[in-house]
């Protein structure tokens, strides 16, 4: 079992079954790719990984967390995918105080606001980042007024609120909004509402199968003819684009990583990922990869696996990521990073995202958290 002196134990608390399992697997793939690059060792110590399935279910997530911390004595937790699971994990991570936590996907800002946990580092993004910065860009480049359509749960609600506020601040007008229950199959009633609003553009937050249904039906109902679709990057990501097909073309979204990005660092990463997995990396793989980088950097810098030392090393540290380098915000441990506006265009094998603009130097809110 883990926890012995000369091995490091990495605990993946991720969904491996259910609708999010692809995300879980991608994060693990990314993480392991970095380990392979390092010959399986970090700081001269062997690394053991243990996976526990969260099934994207809060209770399963809590149990998995506890098991990884208590039974497996993990030195670091990597995960989860869902913010609800992450929120539920906070208490346990804090109680145990035995490992740092590299949050490789869950983006809810309240993890910072309510948690403000020194062990918590986001190697991914927060929901403010994938929504607010897009607003001024849309106002300048696309439309003066927007309609907001979002999946009616915490993440969707946060995203549309951040975007809406930022859009109005930029001078635009929000003409209406509609919340759609998670797991909706037929969007036609909502599309009607969107169409009737007469807005020039729509900002949407949907993910997974909702994103597939929304985007394709948006196209089928002919809304493309009169309005421009924008959204957070999950609306049009690598895992949904194949199913969205032609319907995705011409739509804009904001994300911190784009696999087709031409930077050398990314090409290298993407190439070696494709060599092992036969597919392009997605944003989750990048987040996994960066989690591994962050962990390695912390271990090497701190020279021990004591969680307080590791946390101290990572706070404010800079990671050389395929997405472009980013650093952990000293007050919140959230990643300070470039955001990319992308447009879906016809690529060599099907529609793909192409970066049309890079938003740099974005100042992150801290929501009252002050770790340092």
């Amino acid at each position: 079992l883990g926890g012995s002196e000369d091995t490091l134990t990495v605990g993946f608390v991720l969904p491996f079954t259910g609708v999010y399992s692809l995300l879980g697997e991608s994060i693990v793939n990314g993480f392991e790719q970095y380990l392979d690059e390092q010959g399986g060792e970090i700081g001269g110590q062997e690394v053991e990984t243990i996976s526990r399935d969260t099934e994207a279910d809060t209770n399963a997530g809590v149990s998995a967390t506890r098991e990884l911390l208590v039974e497996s004595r993990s030195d670091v937790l990597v995960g989860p995918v869902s913010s609800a699971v992450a929120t539920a994990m906070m208490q346990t991570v804090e109680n145990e105080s035995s490992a740092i936590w590299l949050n490789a996907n869950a983006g809810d800002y309240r993890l910072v606001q309510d948690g403000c946990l020194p062990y918590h580092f986001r190697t991914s993004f927060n929901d403010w980042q994938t929504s607010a910065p897009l607003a001024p860009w849309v106002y300048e480049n696309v439309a003066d007024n927007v309609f907001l359509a979002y999946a009616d749960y915490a993440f969707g609600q946060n995203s549309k609120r951040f975007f809406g506020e930022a859009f109005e601040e930029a001078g635009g007008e929000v003409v209406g909004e509609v919340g759609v229950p998670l797991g909706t199959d037929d969007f036609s009633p909502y599309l009607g509402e969107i169409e009737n609003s007469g807005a020039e553009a729509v900002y949407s937050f949907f993910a997974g199968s909702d994103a597939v249904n929304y985007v394709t039906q948006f196209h089928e109902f002919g809304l493309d003819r009169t309005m421009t679709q924008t959204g957070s990057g999950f609306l049009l990501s690598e895992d949904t684009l194949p199913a969205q097909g032609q319907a995705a073309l011409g739509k804009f979204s904001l994300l911190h990583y784009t696999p087709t990005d031409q930077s050398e660092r990314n090409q290298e990463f993407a190439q070696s990922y494709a060599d092992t997995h036969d597919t392009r990396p997605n944003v989750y793989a990048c987040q996994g990869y960066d989690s591994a980088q962050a962990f390695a950097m912390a271990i090497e810098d701190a020279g021990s696996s004591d969680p307080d030392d590791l946390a101290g090393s990572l706070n404010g540290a800079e990671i050389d990521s395929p997405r472009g380098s980013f650093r952990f915000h000293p007050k919140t441990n959230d990643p300070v990073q470039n955001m990319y506006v992308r447009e879906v265009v016809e690529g060599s094998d099907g529609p793909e995202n192409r970066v049309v603009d890079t938003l740099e130097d974005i100042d992150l809110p801290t929501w009252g958290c002050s770790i340092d």
Partner: protein
Amino acid sequence: MKSVMNLAADLKTAIGIGETTGPIGEQVLSSQGRLAALVVAGVLAVFAPVAQAFEPFWLNILTRMLVFALLALSLDFVFGYAGLLSFGHAAMFGAGGYAAALAIREVTTNALVVLPASMLVGVAVAAFIGWFSVRAKGIYFAMLTLAFAQMFYVIVFTDLPATVLDVETITGGDDGLFGIPLYEAIGIDFTSRLLYFYLTLVLVLVSFAVLVRVANSPFGRTMQGIRENEERMQFIGYDVQRYKLLAFSISGGFAGLAGGLYVPFQSVAQPGLLHWTISGELVVMLLLGGMGTLWGPMLGGALVIYLEERLAGFATWEIILGSVFVVVVIFAPRGLAGTLISIKNDPRNTITHVKQALRNYVEKVRG
């Protein structure tokens, strides 16, 4: 159709409750059975500190197993024993859990206050659902309880109470309530995992003893009569609906207690607790454990949690779990309890029984 209309009436023949616990006229849980229950509890109590020392995580699994054993027990009391096919027990479980979360946050962490409150909320929710449902029979009762439970789920998920009362949040919506601390009571601080385990163990044991006692009481006997033949009981002079409502409420109380134990332990109350999949899983635990025996479903509950916990790492765990259900239902229809009893009664013929079961299967498939 006919058989589903009076599912309850032929539970016995089909499932062989008569064979698992002896004829229904007999005691639920013989003195031998009581002894066995005490021994199991004793072993768990001794094992706990050992686990704490070597594999502390075991305490987590065990506590979860105990909570679900309690939940399965509460369901079996109405479902297997009294013949009310509840497909909505998650509602009482979740309600008890949310009640505990709110009480701990807003009022006190004293278990002596919060746990009874959880039970009461469980009773109240069950009484509400039962009030509308007990007149329906069989599968229609099942569907009504399911419908009400799903309504509660939606209400919690959308945080409807907050909207109605116009406050910011009550149930916490889809995020639920998190960061719920553990109990203290009579000067004991249950934040130690070991002590929390003992708290759970004691309460599960007490609940079991109480429900066994109630099952053997005149009330319990009446419920059995209703399960066997509702119409006849009516014409003997029993107010059948009232009995059913009461049994359902009692069961709801224990389901609420299970919720009250679970939520602080997990530190979150989240809408998934009320989802129909929990109710469905509970029914599976019951069938797997051996309905109507009270102790069988507790084993079933513990086993399902254990399997989920241990298989969760495998990519194919759903396939494995599903196959277990399929194999059990075809080859061991009386569940764990039935199998254990037949092995105990006739240990030497176990192999013969297995062969016989296989032969029967092949014969039936051929038609």
